[in-house]
């Protein structure tokens, strides 16, 4: 399989991604704001259009409609009755905030943008909307207060079920740091390399973690990369990945001073468990390319 992929690379045209529309999931959380900013920057680089989506969670509205359901206030332990009008008002306020954030971000960069509000189950609405976009950007976490995990449920569903590339952002990360691409030769990895190199242009340097069975393949991969990125002005540094044990990989990446990690997942020779661990355990922004 690996060899097939390699041949494929050598003989075929380079696998590129076309990104015209970027969908940003907005929920007024800090992470979604980070996602919005990253998406806006990306849209500027790729000359894409920005689409903001706010989903009014149907579950919240339904629960508010049940007379016996009460809200237990965080850290206070008090109970408070909830009702539909109030919940709707709250959601509308959030949507308005999200729209303001989007327009401010887009207008500053003079991007084309649109905003829309949907009502329904959050993940389903998001996935449905993602079908009409070339990239889905969202926060690693939603507005959850019990934040023990690094990957929220919506993000998890999006990575698992989205058809196109997904950008998982978190707040407080400096995206001007070098971009890191994991390259294993598969077509998805080639697309990841191209996107990564494109996004690395402002910073000017791209780190590539090359994973190959043997030295010869690794060498081959390197020359492939040089050829592929011939017309992108970016300094590339390589590093051979020897150990793909999940913990080791997480450690390697978290020590590599990386802003954004780009990985191709479809048909990757890397074990699925490894990729999953990298997604869940790493606290960096990740762009998952298929």
């Amino acid at each position, binding site marked *: 399989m690996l060899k097939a992929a390699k041949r494929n690379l050598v003989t075929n045209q380079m696998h590129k991604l076309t990104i015209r529309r970027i969908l940003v999931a907005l929920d007024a959380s800090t992470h979604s704001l980070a996602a919005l900013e990253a998406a806006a920057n990306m849209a500027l680089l790729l000359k894409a259009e920005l689409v903001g989506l706010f989903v009014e969670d149907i*579950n919240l509205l*339904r*629960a508010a409609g049940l007379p016996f359901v009460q809200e237990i206030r965080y*850290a206070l332990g008090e109970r408070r009755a909830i009702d539909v009008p109030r919940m709707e008002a709250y959601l509308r306020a959030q949507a308005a905030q999200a729209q303001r954030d989007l327009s401010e971000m887009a207008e500053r960069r003079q991007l084309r943008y649109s905003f829309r509000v949907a009502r329904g*189950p959050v993940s389903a609405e998001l996935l449905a909307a993602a079908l009409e976009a070339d990239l889905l950007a969202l926060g690693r976490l939603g507005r959850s*207060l019990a*934040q*023990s995990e690094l990957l929220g449920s919506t993000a998890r569903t999006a990575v698992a079920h989205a058809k196109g590339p997904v950008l998982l952002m978190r707040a407080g990360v400096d995206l001007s740091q070098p971009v890191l691409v994991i390259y294993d030769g598969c077509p998805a990895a080639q697309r990841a390399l191209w996107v990564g190199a494109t996004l690395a242009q402002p910073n000017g340097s791209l780190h590539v973690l090359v994973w190959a069975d043997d030295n010869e393949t690794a060498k081959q991969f390197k020359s492939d990369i040089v050829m592929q990125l011939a017309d992108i002005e970016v300094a590339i540094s390589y590093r051979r990945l020897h150990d793909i044990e999940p913990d080791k990989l997480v450690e390697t990446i978290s020590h590599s001073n990386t802003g954004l990690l780009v990985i191709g997942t479809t048909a990757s020779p890397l074990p699925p468990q490894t990729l999953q661990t990298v997604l869940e355990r790493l606290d960096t922004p990740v762009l998952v390319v298929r």
Partner: protein
Amino acid sequence: MPVPQPLPPEALYKTCDPQQFAFASTAEVEDGHQIIGQDRAVASIQFGIGIQREGYNLYALGSHGTGKYTAVHQFLAQKAAAESPPSDWCYVHNFEQAHKSHALRLPAGMATELRDDMQKLVEELVTILPAAFTSEEYQAQKKVLEEEYKSQQTQALEKLRSQARLNNIALIQTPGGFAFAPLKEGEVVSPDEFLQLSREEQTKIEAQVEDLQETLQDIMRQVPQWQRTAQRRLKEMNREVAGFAIMPLLNELRQKYAELENVQAYFSAVQRDIIENFDIFLEEEKTTMAAMMGMAAAQQESSLRRYQVNVLVDHRTTAGAPIVFEAQPRYQNLVGRVEHISQMGALMTDFTLIKPGALHRANGGYLVLEARSLLMQPYAWDGLKHALRAGQINIESLGQVYSLVSTVSLEPEPIPLDVKVIMLGERLLYYLLCHYEPDFPELFKVAADFEDDMERSDASNQAYAQLIATLVRKEKMRHFDRAAVARVIEHSSRQAGDAEKLSIHMQSISDLLREADYWAVENNHEVVTVVDVQRALDAQIYRASRIRDRIQESILRDTILIDTEGEMLGQINGLAVYQTGQFAFAKPSRITARVRMGKGEVIDIERQVEMGGPIHSKGVMILAGFLGARYAAERPFPLSATLVFEQSYAGVDGDSASSAELYALLSVLAQAPLKQSLAVTGSVNQHGQVQAIGGVNEKIEGFFDVCNARGLTGAQGVLIPQANVKNLMLRQEVVDAVRDGRFHVYPVAHVDEGIELLTGVAAGALDADGNYPPESINGRVVAWLTQTAEEQRKFAAPPRESDAESRKEESRDKPDA
């Protein structure tokens, strides 16, 4: 009574023989004391400086320029040099009560070391503490703590979530917290769907949700508790880390200052404070608005100020006990002050802005102040007094004391005061202080009373020569030859107004030496000669004598009427002394007496118009007493007499003219004209004795100058009291005239002698029958009185008060005296 003989020239001026000096010039004389003739003051100073008891401060009193400071400083310097320097003092932050800054006493020279050590400590901590808190170990431990706290929450929530899920109930997040809602196919059941459920199912779900809600409430109530615990544990860990990081540095300091308990206590407080506030050393991590405005650094700096040491008194380079002379003894200059700085428009202060006063600098030593300067400054005496009484220095601003300002202020811990204060001042101030300030005698128990002059003897001449030599060397002047020294001594005697005394007014001596030195340079003299000294004296007089010369001019032009020849009835030349600045001179004043019938009174016109002082009035009343007792004890005194100083427009005081006034009256009463070639000075008592007066030299010279200008006739002279002969130190010109017989000075002991000199008629003594010889002055007076009384009896009515006595128009064009 024999007529007094004129004094011989030798009595008019006591020369100082240059031959008594063994040296040719002062270059051969060794340095001696700069203080001579002040045995009493020196003994007092030695005692006052030596005694170590409370309240034994010293007040050196004497005229300005008597060398009080020199004397005091000389003895202080000797005493202080043998003593060890006192403690250093500094102020440090009080970590418990910031406005009550602590004072630290340190051995001399240690204060600056402590300051530098603390400065170094802070500099090191600024790098060490951030390093400790960014270390991987610390971050890992911190993460563990945070994780523990988070997982406590999430575990409880997750447990509840899974419990709920078993019953197909979801834990969902709401705007303000959490809620439980029943699920259907993974989504929350809508209200419509719920209503379609059976009654039992609904009740069951509601009960389950209620249960879960209660459990969740319990968990939520614990959250703050967990949070507090986590925070407490983080804080403890921070303390440990901070404590561990600073320990080696502080231990090093503790060892260095092991013997100083107060410093150890300060270090402990510093340690506690750093551990409590370690985060101020980490400020740079903050990215707030303040940081953007460049204020973070300023803020950190101001937080770190509290670890500074404000060295108030530093005796690192002091040898011996300090001697401080505070030339401007303002309140703040004495007790110190707390300054303010403007921060964002507000006035702020802290212990680093405490500034020392003279009392701080002199603490453990000596403080020298000028009484006049001290008393001229508002509240300065109060401040000094309170510090001395309390035995401590309390820094309080006047604004604070009198609630005039209300900025942020400090109450620095008082510093114990152990100082000897030496005040220098005039006698008057000393006596006023003693009288009006009850605390003063308690605080200044020793008075060093400086003399203005000393005995003139061979020994003192030698001492004087040594003093001149010392001053000459100190001021780097040309040396004085022995004749010049002798002339200075003679002048000093004149200065003292006494041929048997020498002035020890150091300032005028020094001034004369300096000026003589100047003239020696002008005259190209290698050594200052008598010519230079005389030139200096003449120049001094010339510079100061404009008014004297104008007055004399007025006399010579007969604007002021003074006769120096001929004889006149009831008119006599008195002598009045004027002082302009440092220069004294005398001018003759015409005194006249007129009599008329009256009821026996002597009218002092000066007093009637309030131009005569009380002493003058007293003199006139005394002479009236003499007249009454001598001539009217047994018969009426049917006269009114008027006495006046002619052409006096500025008032007179003093009784030195009372003998002259008496002579004028006697002249009228006896109808015996007075010689205008003589001038008279001397006061008189009720027995007719002539008593001593001041300024005798000036008075003689004053009359001499007028006579000399008109040409000396050989008949002219001055009558002076016998008691003033010892004061004579007359100008050489006068002495020469006397020697040539062209001018005379008569010593008079009694008015009877004087009247004979002035009229050429004997006063006359009582014979066995109690009568005066008829041709004598006294006899003529008695005869005249008897005749007038007869005439008076012829009038039926009492004598009419006459106002026909013409009053002299005041003329405004006369020079003022």
